[in-house]
């Protein structure tokens, strides 16, 4: 048989073996190619919006290459180890290592580039789908037909060529290092043999759990006012990261073994089938895979965390837009407001207008602040706050009272108010003490007047006049009257928005809410798409890696299934046990990843939006669902193994 025939036969025989490797390849290529196609597509220009958007895409594609290449190298390592016996056999019949390497490379070349082209084809079809998703979430409406981009093609080809060379290099090293003997025992030497639990492991296990809990605890205190300076905050964040990552590693290294062992001791040797099957996996293998599992857990936690945060901001765009633009059209410049009103009247669009005079006043709010924030960086004794009259709000407030409204949720985390107390208002020459009667949620004036989210102060009209006459000129803003315009009929909003834009009224101080929301949607949408794409890639690659691991584990344990079936366990018994085992194997990294990201998101979500639970639960649920598909696939694989075992 010539070498060529040998290669061909090998390929045919191994195609089943390599099925997953090929799948992994096609999958990586198609993801990468569709991403790059989008990146180069002219119709993306609008979605990309700015140079920042393009740069984000660029950075994401680099990250994508990193994930994909690590994944492919890992998959290759698993599959070359499985062929150890075959390589040993070639060596035994007198082939040189170089020759074996050449055979393997040629075989790989066919597989690799075959899948590469299939992947590019699939990737191209998928990029249309991705484009549609992108257009949907960014709200950018003109759909251009996608072109097959030769730039994207060449870039994909180049990237995967380099990965191919890396893989070949690793195979080369692998073959060089092997002796005939070690090749025959390659699979058994990769896993630790069964050992007794040592004191050291108990220490590691307990340390791990303590570290994780400590990290979580600090994270809940992070923005609670406990850390006030930037340096302290940065230090706390690094500490959390270190504690949680090291804790996770120790957790896999020791804690799981300890918990499993305590449970096992309790049974006094009388184990049921579920325990028998999951024991080896949980007690012995998780330990030897602890680095891999730590990486998977940490990166999934990052992915889920980022996705949740981005989705929180996307989800809260409508809400945050109200904070920034309280009416459909918000003007600080009265001239621009009048021009717009004139045009609206001409177009016969009905609207209502409010004009709110605002003055900035220094106040002492120390008495109504909850004590813990006293040392924060706020001038609580001389805090400048915007003041409006009760008339602008249509409420009634007596002369010695004061009502707050529209406090930003982010700031509220740092500086919360008591339910009652005294506020001292200072003007040029005198100070007046007023009774604080509470905080309302309505936002009435834009961001600009409230220094980015401080509450608006409502006072009696007579007091307002008095304050206005004695105001400190130095602290007043350029605009002292806010004009808000709302349309009577919401159907006119698009026409009015077009009018607003055609008059070129928009600047930082005069905004249309619709335009603002659209703009935010396209920015956040793009970010969400990129993070989501990377998250999905990572999810699928890590799921595949766990699945490959389970395949190997299953094959090693096939002998055990034979024994158990001889003893009289039915296939159903064993499969039930395997389900339990996979619940742990896939469930533990998933649950820990979810917990990590939950605490991460919880510590700082209020910087990103106004709603925590709905977006976070949607992201986590979707992640868990996609992830569990791999668990189910692995159970199906075990089913086959068990069926064959007797």
């Amino acid at each position, binding site marked *: 048989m010539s070498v060529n025939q040998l290669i061909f036969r090998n390929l045919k025989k191994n195609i089943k073996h390599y099925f997953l490797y090929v799948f992994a390849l096609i999958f990586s290529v198609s993801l990468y190619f569709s991403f790059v196609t989008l990146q180069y597509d002219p119709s993306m220009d609008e979605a990309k919006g700015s140079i920042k958007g393009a740069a984000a895409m660029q950075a994401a594609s680099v990250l994508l290459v990193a994930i994909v290449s690590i994944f492919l190298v890992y998959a290759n390592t698993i599959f070359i180890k499985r062929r150890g016996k075959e390589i040993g056999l070639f060596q035994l019949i007198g082939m040189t290592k170089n020759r074996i390497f050449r055979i393997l490379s040629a075989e790989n070349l066919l597989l690799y580039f075959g899948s590469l082209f299939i992947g590019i084809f699939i990737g191209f079809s998928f990029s249309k789908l991705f484009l549609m998703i992108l257009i949907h979430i960014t709200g950018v409406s003109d759909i251009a037909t996608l072109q097959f981009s030769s730039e994207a093609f060449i870039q994909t080809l180049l990237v995967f060529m380099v990965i191919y060379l890396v893989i070949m290099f690793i195979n080369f090293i692998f073959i060089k290092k092997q002796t005939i003997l070690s090749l025959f025992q390659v699979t058994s030497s990769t896993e630790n*043999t*069964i050992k*007794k639990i040592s004191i050291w492991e108990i220490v590691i296990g307990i340390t791990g759990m303590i570290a994780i809990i400590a990290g979580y605890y600090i994270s809940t205190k992070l923005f609670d006012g406990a850390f006030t300076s930037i340096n302290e905050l940065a230090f706390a964040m690094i500490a959390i990261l270190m504690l949680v990552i090291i804790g996770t590693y120790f957790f896999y290294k020791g804690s799981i073994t300890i918990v499993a062992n305590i449970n096992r001791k309790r049974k*006094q*040797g*009388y*184990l*049921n*089938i579920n325990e*028998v099957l999951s*024991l*080896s996996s949980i*007690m*012995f293998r998780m330990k030897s895979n602890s680095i891999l599992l730590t990486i998977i857990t940490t990166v999934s936690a990052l992915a889920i965390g980022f996705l949740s945060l981005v989705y929180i901001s996307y989800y809260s765009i409508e809400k945050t837009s109200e904070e920034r633009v309280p009416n459909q059209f918000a003007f600080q410049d009265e001239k621009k407001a009048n021009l717009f009103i004139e045009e609206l009247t001409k177009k016969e669009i009905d609207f209502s207008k409010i004009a709110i005079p605002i003055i900035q006043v220094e106040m002492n709010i120390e008495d109504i602040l909850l004590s813990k924030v006293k040392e924060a960086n706020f001038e609580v004794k001389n805090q400048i706050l915007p003041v409006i009259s009760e008339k602008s709000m249509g409420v009634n407030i007596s002369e010695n009272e004061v009502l707050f409204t529209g406090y930003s949720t982010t700031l509220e985390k740092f500086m919360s108010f008591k339910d009652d107390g005294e506020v001292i208002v200072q003007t040029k020459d005198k100070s007046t003490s007023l009774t604080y009667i509470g905080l309302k949620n309505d936002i009435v004036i834009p961001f600009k007047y409230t220094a980015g989210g401080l509450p608006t102060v409502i006072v009696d009209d007579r007091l307002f006049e008095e304050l206005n006459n004695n105001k400190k000129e130095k602290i007043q803003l350029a605009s002292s009257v806010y004009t808000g315009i709302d349309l009577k009929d919401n159907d006119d909003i698009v026409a009015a928005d077009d009018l607003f834009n055609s008059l070129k009224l928009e600047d930082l101080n005069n905004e249309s809410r619709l335009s603002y929301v659209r703009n935010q949607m396209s920015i956040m949408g793009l970010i969400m798409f990129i993070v989501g794409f990377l998250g999905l890639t990572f999810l699928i690659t890590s799921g595949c890696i766990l699945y490959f691991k389970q395949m190997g584990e299953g094959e090693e344990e096939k002998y*055990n299934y*034979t*024994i*158990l*079936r*001889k*003893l*009289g*366990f*039915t*296939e*159903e*018994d064993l499969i039930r046990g395997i389900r339990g085992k996979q619940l742990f194997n896939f469930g533990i990294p998933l649950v820990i990843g979810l917990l990590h990201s939950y605490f991460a998101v919880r510590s700082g979500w209020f910087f990103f939006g106004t709603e925590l639970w709905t977006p976070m639960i949607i992201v986590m649920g979707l992640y868990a669902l996609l992830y569990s598909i791999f668990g189910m696939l692995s159970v199906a694989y075990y089913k086959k193994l068990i069926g064959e075992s*007797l």
Partner: protein
Amino acid sequence: MSILVASKIHKSYGNKFNRQEVLKGVDLTVQKGEFVSIMGASGSGKTTLLNVLSSIDRVSGGTIHIDGKEITGLKEKQLAEFRKNNLGFIFQDYNLLDTLTVKENILLPLSITKTPKSEAHNRFSKIAKELGIEELQDKYPNEISGGQKQRTSAARAFIHEPSIIFADEPTGALDSKSASDLLNKLSQLNVDRNTTIVMVTHDPVAASYCHRVVFIKDGQIFTQLNKGEQNRQDFFQDIMKTQGILGGVHDER
């Protein structure tokens, strides 16, 4: 009372065009409490016979009754059910799960039949004492010797008090001291518990511990020897003689 009745067992492997008949009509009856060994040269079909009798493999023809129940027609699930209640196994390569301790391995058959825990512990301490492996109960299989592994395997076969135990070359991987040790224990248990044991072996010493030796040649029963009132030494001589006649492969010159 006969506990195992096999009649006209045929077993062949391969497909329609390339068929190899391994068992060609074997009839065998085993009485309750008997210790029987099956001997034969390699390739004679003795392991196939054991696999078929013990329901691990299916027959191509013929019937097998164990404890009055016909097992040849049973479904896979019913067979598993039957195995866990009525059969015990000892294998040449021990077949212990190396992730479980000695005690956990031994208690496995009880966990399938859902025996109450206290009962399980009683049975364990009794059989472990009888086989002398009490000290080893918390050790893993890779920490103990071959002889100890095989005694563990034997304890697992006996613990659920099956009506019949099948042993496939139990001494095959043991040194002669451990082997005789194990065989003494097996005969002891055979007497004490009145358990039926069917053992496949190619070792005449091992066979001499039995009441009866069945010789298989080319898929058929060649002859049988009964120990009767003889002592083990004389029985051993008989077995050696018969094996000489059986003669392995004939010289084709």
